[in-house]
């Protein structure tokens, strides 16, 4: 009691705060609940994002390039229906082939299935030779009715190597229907519809149907996670309720703890919804983590409250609630801050959005739990005045009778008795762990997200077993000129690349236009197998394409080559999605391409799902160690500040650091790979595990601070006794805290989402070891080294002199501990990409802007502009205009006439734009045909939207030039964007006035290094919210001047989009000065 009274006197402000809370119990309880209810209103807006691409930052060049490839060749992540027969060549039966046709037809009727993009034996064409050239006919013409028809198709496929292994298994045991979706965001629904169709299909004997593919994975994962979450979260809540009920033998603590859990989890999810952050695959772990953490605060407060009540059964319970909070607020706040620091580590160090947001929002959830524990809990306790159970009082009265208290005391006694041994063992374990960490292997396989018993998992394995592989790696071949891909040398290079790719492990098929040309060459040479090769000259190539086009649909090759015969795609089929398998393939291909391609004549770039996955998975290791390092530093920093001692910071970190190193050893020994699930364990383990250390350190320190109030020195025996005193109380509370968290995470072990399962297992292990290290290693360390931050001014009376010498040495050693920690963490940080020094100096923003502004945009220009304005519901309005621009000295005059539709026809807009050095404002006029009048309009509203578009008047007037006086430009990086080598620049308005005038607080610009045109821009509004994105496409030279022919401005706030397409751009024809007059404006020409 003395200590409490002392602390009361020392902290009048805190005392007043908690006094206020416990004396307004109803108001604050209800206010807290209302706050929770109000914030929950956002929850229904929470969206899910289970795409693999979600792990990559949206502006990642690899992702952007992949999107471009998708658009160019229309390649989407498909759903794959496999028809597998138990006999070789079993699919070549009329009944099976008919089913292929039926299913292809039925699938095409399902919503969101792109009927034009279904690939199966029933949809594909065979190429055969005829007396007058080529014949391109469907394989299913005539329709397979008899075994003879089936045999004919078997023969046709065997004569057409392209489809073997890709469309039909080489042994004829399986065939696939590849289905693409119109909108991949609707994958879940589409997956279920196709699944239902397959379930209701009657199959011929010996045939089974399976559904897999990346499209199916994305589609199924959503509902898979839902069902997992709806099972896990109530289970975690139930287990925790039971543990609390058991610890206190009362229902009230369990109910109140559940309110705190609900507040923490639900408000956090609501905040995610409010900030438009989606619920990712791994976010499923967030509620469970928060359940474990938020309950800890309630356990500690109730533990202390009941302890006080059992000691003073007659005391005013409201007063006891206040006293409990005054005593416990500090360690609870400390642990909250250190836990948040741990999760911020994940946020700061991870580049992958799911991890980043996991870190950020878990930290937020922890803060919410703290707030509710500090306000709602005492208010609700003061209102309900929970009474301690008799059983608890009895336990308190005879601490040694409680199994848990006895256990903890025994543990404490053992560690204090063998203090030095504990320290040495701890040190050895850390060294072994440090070595093991370097042996960790990064690996990830998306299909392994599913439990092996899942049909989708089995289907994937089956498809990869029978066919050449369901995983695609695309190689995009680009040439500088139209029809360059008619050139034989280019085709030969592609052929060589394909052959090289096929020599690599797991690559079972490579398809490109080369294969079609070979097949055409063969059939044109009487089907001679030896003629399955490229034709002899480029002319023949052109003729083959012409012949093919004459015989069939010219869009047949749109997946392989572009319309201009300038860009082609080579698609590799790989039978594994595992990172460790694909990495050598990608590295070998990259090396080959660097040697054989990427000159001025031809370039090759890797893309496709496999490349993209490789791209982000390779960063998992770096991301993991970075977030670990940042978390450790943050936790150390926060603990150091809170305890007022850097050594205390090291003590706080040591138990968790040692437990993590121990886990590394276990992972290396058990061959557990570092993947999506496992990589974030370290930050979570630090955030959770550090609590034990903080509570232990704080209570031990408090013990000696209290002692210092009565005496000036302390002996060894007394140190042991004082430390041991915390074990039946704080130790017991920590044990239940640990059990709650371990069981909470233990629930994840039952998760069917495999990465979550791994994550739960490892975190549960890490928390266990952290707990054990906190209650064993820390007391031992304190006993051995007697740090000043624990003992303060207490004089330590030691027995023999030798021991004194050792203690002094120990103190010196420990005084070096922060340095040691820095040395340990430093190399980790230095080896991370974040810390890599920028060696290539980037040009300054102003230099780039000058370059942009100095690019020739023609003395004059005439052009047609077709505007399409699309609202958020997809409703379109179109406008056609003709525009002229001409320089008059430094002045620029622009005029735009609307040609259609009728309701805006003849509207005209004229601008005189003066150079910045002229002080006069620009002049603008608008001609409104309804008034038949040229109207002078204000030119100051530069940030207003131009006649209903998403471009502002300033955007229109500047025509892509950048105002050096309006913004400060800072070059950020060099990036590959849509095949443009660009500089990324951040432009910040020079002051608030300009910012308000323009309507932007920041602009992010990508300037193409070749044309010096802005090819992309992101705009933020004055409140710094994302506002608009501009994408410029179809950039090409007209009369020697680089010109953007298509500009799309999307407004993220309104969902409105404006597409500007320029045509008939002409810089040569003379434009009369008289066009830029009010007379001309009013006459509409």
């Amino acid at each position: 009691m003395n200590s409490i009274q002392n602390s009361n006197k020392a902290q009048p402000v805190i005392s007043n705060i908690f006094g206020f809370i416990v004396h307004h119990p109803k108001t604050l309880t209800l206010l807290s609940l209302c706050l929770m209810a109000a914030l929950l209103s956002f929850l229904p807006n929470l969206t899910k994002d289970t795409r693999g691409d979600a792990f990559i930052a949206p502006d990642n060049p690899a992702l952007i390039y992949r999107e471009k490839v998708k658009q160019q060749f229309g390649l989407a992540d498909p759903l794959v229906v496999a028809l597998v027969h138990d006999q070789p060549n079993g699919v070549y039966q009329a009944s099976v082939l008919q089913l292929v046709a039926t299913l292809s037809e039925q699938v095409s009727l399902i919503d969101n299935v792109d009927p034009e993009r279904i690939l199966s034996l029933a949809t594909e064409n065979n190429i055969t030779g005829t007396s007058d050239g080529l014949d391109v006919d469907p394989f299913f013409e005539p329709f397979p009715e008899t075994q003879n028809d089936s045999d004919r198709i078997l023969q046709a496929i065997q004569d057409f190597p392209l489809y073997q292994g890709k469309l039909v298994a080489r042994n004829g045991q399986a065939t696939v229907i590849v289905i693409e979706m119109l909108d991949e965001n609707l994958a879940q629904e589409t997956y279920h519809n196709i699944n239902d169709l397959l379930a209701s299909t009657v199959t011929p004997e010996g045939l089974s149907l399976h559904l897999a593919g990346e499209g199916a994975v994305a589609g199924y994962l959503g509902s898979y996670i839902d069902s997992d979450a709806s099972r896990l979260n109530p289970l975690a809540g139930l287990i925790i309720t039971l543990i609390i009920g058991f610890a206190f033998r009362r229902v009230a603590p369990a109910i109140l703890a559940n309110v705190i859990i609900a507040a923490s989890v639900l408000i956090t999810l609501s905040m995610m919804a409010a900030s438009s952050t989606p619920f990712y695959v791994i976010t499923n772990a967030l509620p469970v983590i928060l359940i474990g953490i938020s309950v800890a605060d309630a356990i500690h407060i109730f533990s202390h409250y009941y302890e006080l009540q059992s000691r003073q059964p007659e005391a005013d319970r409201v007063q006891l609630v206040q006293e409990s909070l005054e005593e416990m607020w500090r360690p609870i706040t400390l642990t909250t801050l250190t836990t948040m620091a741990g999760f911020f580590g994940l946020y700061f160090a991870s580049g992958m959005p799911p991890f980043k947001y996991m870190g950020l929002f878990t930290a937020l959830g922890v803060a919410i739990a703290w707030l509710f524990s500090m306000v709602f809990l005492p208010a609700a306790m003061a209102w309900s005045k929970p009474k301690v159970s008799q059983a608890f009082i009895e336990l308190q009265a005879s601490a040694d009778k409680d199994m848990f208290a006895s256990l903890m005391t025994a543990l404490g006694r053992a560690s204090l008795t063998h203090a030095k041994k504990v320290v040495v063992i701890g040190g050895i374990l850390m060294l072994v762990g440090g070595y093991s960490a370097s042996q960790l292997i990064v690996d990830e396989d998306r299909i392994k997200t599913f439990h092996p018993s899942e049909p989708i998992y089995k289907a994937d394995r089956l498809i990869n077993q029978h066919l050449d592989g369901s995983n695609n790696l695309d190689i995009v071949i680009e040439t500088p000129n139209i029809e360059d891909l008619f050139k034989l040398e280019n085709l030969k290079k592609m052929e060589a690349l394909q052959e090289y790719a096929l020599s690599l492990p797991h690559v079972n098929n490579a398809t490109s236009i080369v294969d079609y040309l070979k097949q055409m060459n063969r059939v044109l040479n009487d089907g001679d197998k030896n003629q399955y090769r490229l034709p002899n000259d480029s002319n023949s190539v052109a003729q083959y394409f012409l012949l093919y086009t004459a015989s069939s649909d010219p869009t047949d090759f749109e997946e392989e080559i572009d319309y201009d015969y300038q860009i082609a795609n080579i698609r590799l089929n790989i039978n594994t999605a595992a990172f460790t398998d694909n990495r050598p393939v990608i590295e070998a291909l990259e090396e080959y391409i660097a040697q054989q391609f990427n000159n001025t004549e031809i370039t090759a770039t890797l893309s496709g799902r496999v490349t993209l996955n490789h791209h982000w998975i390779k960063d998992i290791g770096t991301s993991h160690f970075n977030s670990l390092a940042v978390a450790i530093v943050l936790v150390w920093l926060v603990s150091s500040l809170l305890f007022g001692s850097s050594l205390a910071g090291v003590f706080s970190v040591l138990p968790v650091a040692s437990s993590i190193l121990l886990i590394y050893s276990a992972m290396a020994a058990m061959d557990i790979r570092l993947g999506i699930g496992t990589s974030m364990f370290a930050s979570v383990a630090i955030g959770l595990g550090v609590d034990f250390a903080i509570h232990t350190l704080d209570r031990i320190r408090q013990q000696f601070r209290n002692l210092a109030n009565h005496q000036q020195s302390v002996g060894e025996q007394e140190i042991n006794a004082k430390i041991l005193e915390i074990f039946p109380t704080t130790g017991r509370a920590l044990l239940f805290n640990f059990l709650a968290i371990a069981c909470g995470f233990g629930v994840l072990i039952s998760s069917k989402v495999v990465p979550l399962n791994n994550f739960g297992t490892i975190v549960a292990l890490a928390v266990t070891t952290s707990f054990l290290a906190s209650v064993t290693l820390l007391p031992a360390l304190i006993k051995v080294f007697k740090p000043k931050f624990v003992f303060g001014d207490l004089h330590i009376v030691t027995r023999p002199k030798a021991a004194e010498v050792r203690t002094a040495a120990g103190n010196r050693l420990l005084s070096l501990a922060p340095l040691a920690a820095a040395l340990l963490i430093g190399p980790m940080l230095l080896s991370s990409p974040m810390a890599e020094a920028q060696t290539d100096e980037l040009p300054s923003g102003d230099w780039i802007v000058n370059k942009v502004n100095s690019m020739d945009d023609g003395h004059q220009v005439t052009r047609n502009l077709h505007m399409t304005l699309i609202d958020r519901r997809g409703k379109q309005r179109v406008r056609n205009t003709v525009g002229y621009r001409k320089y008059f000295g430094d002045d620029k005059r622009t005029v735009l006439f609307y040609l259609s539709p009728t309701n805006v026809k003849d509207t005209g807009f004229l601008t005189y734009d003066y150079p910045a050095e002229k002080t006069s404002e620009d002049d603008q006029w608008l001609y409104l045909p309804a008034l038949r009048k040229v109207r002078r309009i204000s030119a100051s509203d530069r940030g207003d939207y131009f006649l209903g578009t998403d471009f502002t008047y300033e955007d229109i007037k500047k025509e892509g030039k950048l105002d050096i006086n309006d913004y400060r430009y800072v070059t950020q990086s060099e990036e590959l964007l849509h095949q443009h080598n660009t500089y990324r620049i951040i432009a910040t308005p020079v002051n608030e006035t300009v910012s308000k005038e323009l309507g932007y607080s920041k602009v992010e610009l990508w300037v193409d290094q070749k044309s010096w045109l802005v090819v992309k821009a992101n705009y933020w509004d004055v409140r710094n919210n994302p506002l608009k994105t501009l994408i410029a496409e179809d950039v090409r030279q007209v009369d020697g001047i680089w010109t953007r022919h298509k500009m799309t401005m999307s407004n993220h706030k309104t969902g409105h989009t404006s597409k500007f397409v320029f045509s008939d751009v002409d810089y040569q024809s003379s434009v009369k000065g008289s066009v830029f007059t009010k007379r001309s404006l009013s006459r509409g020409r």
Partner: protein
Amino acid sequence: MRTSLLLAALLPLSLSPHILANEWSASWQHEIAYENDDLQKNQSQLQLEWNHSPAENLELTAIARLAWDSESELYSSKSHPDNYSDWNTSLTRGAHGEISLREFYLDAEWFGAYWRIGKQQVVWGQADGLKVLDVVTPQSFQEFILDDFDDSRIPLWMLNVDIPLNDDNTLQLLWIPDTTYHELAEAGTAFEITTPLRTPQPPANTLITSVDLLAVDKPDHWFKDSDVGIRWSSFVNGWDLTANYFYHYRDFAVLYQELDGQQLTVKPEYQRSHLIGFTASNSFGDYTLRTEAGWYSDSYHLSHTLSEGKSRQGVKHSEEFSSVIGVDWQGLTDTFVSVQWFQSYLLDYDSSIARDQHQQTLTLLAERNFANETWTAKIQGQYSIKQQDQLWRFKLTHTLLSNLDIWVAADSFFGDDEGLYGQFSERDRVLVGFEWGF
């Protein structure tokens, strides 16, 4: 009649394949106005525009209008009202509609000048809805001032030449042989003028048993009675400036009266005037200033000086000075607010004149666009300071498709019967309509 012939000649021409290859556009507008549960207007209007460029620097434009109204509340039943010249006539017209060649002109660039020859509209001045210099083209007041200006102006046959002097200076010359003037609402239609400011009133204590309205003595000579105008436009230091001179017949007929016992004879005549004026406008930050002023050498006003037995009574002559100062504000995104102050001052005022020496009107226009200009809400007000009567107009327009606008609107008049607006205080109306362009 001559116009009818011309239109008849044009129609087969327009169907020839060569011309069909040219630019056509059309709009169909339908508007329904309700007034006290009655339909005031249920009008469909089809406007066809044809542009043809027979050679470089030559372009021919023809705009034809077919209007039909199921009601006959608004329009004159005459096939050729008196205010129109013989040249300026409809193919057919009546109380239920008309078919007319609205505009028909040739644009040409000859001798370094820009010529527009034919039937056309010319708008002078900077003011919105208030006429100081905007007197070149007369107007139809059959729907008072509620109809769109573009529709209510009466295009005239004229010669219009723009002569660029240099980059910033232009001289415009107008010669208007077409002797067509304002068309007023016919007696018995909804917007017949009754205010004493515009209609002759018998002297107090005089009983009038019959009013004889004589046919208007209308100028009709294509040369002798033609109007001429000249306008010099300049752009100086950001200012748009014009100086205007117009020698013309005033568009309102002067209503000379003669009292003979209990018989009042009204004899309308058109009178000439010189108009000298200027306009100036410029923008300053979010504000745009628009001003115009004009001096008329001759203006005629109804007066209470009707003596028995004398001719050409009841009207006083004066010089008149009018001006408008308008300020537009665009300080708020998607919002346009405009206020105008109009004043007219008679330099030779006489207390017998029915109107005040100094007349002032305030106007307000506030317009706001929403959702990328697919919705527009507009409120317009006109307030006469002396009479304190007002006109308020509201309109909400939605662009449903690229080429389809729909709207709802309301017009409301306030004030007593003697005021220009107040006289229609029983004519409040709500409207719905659409315009489809194709």
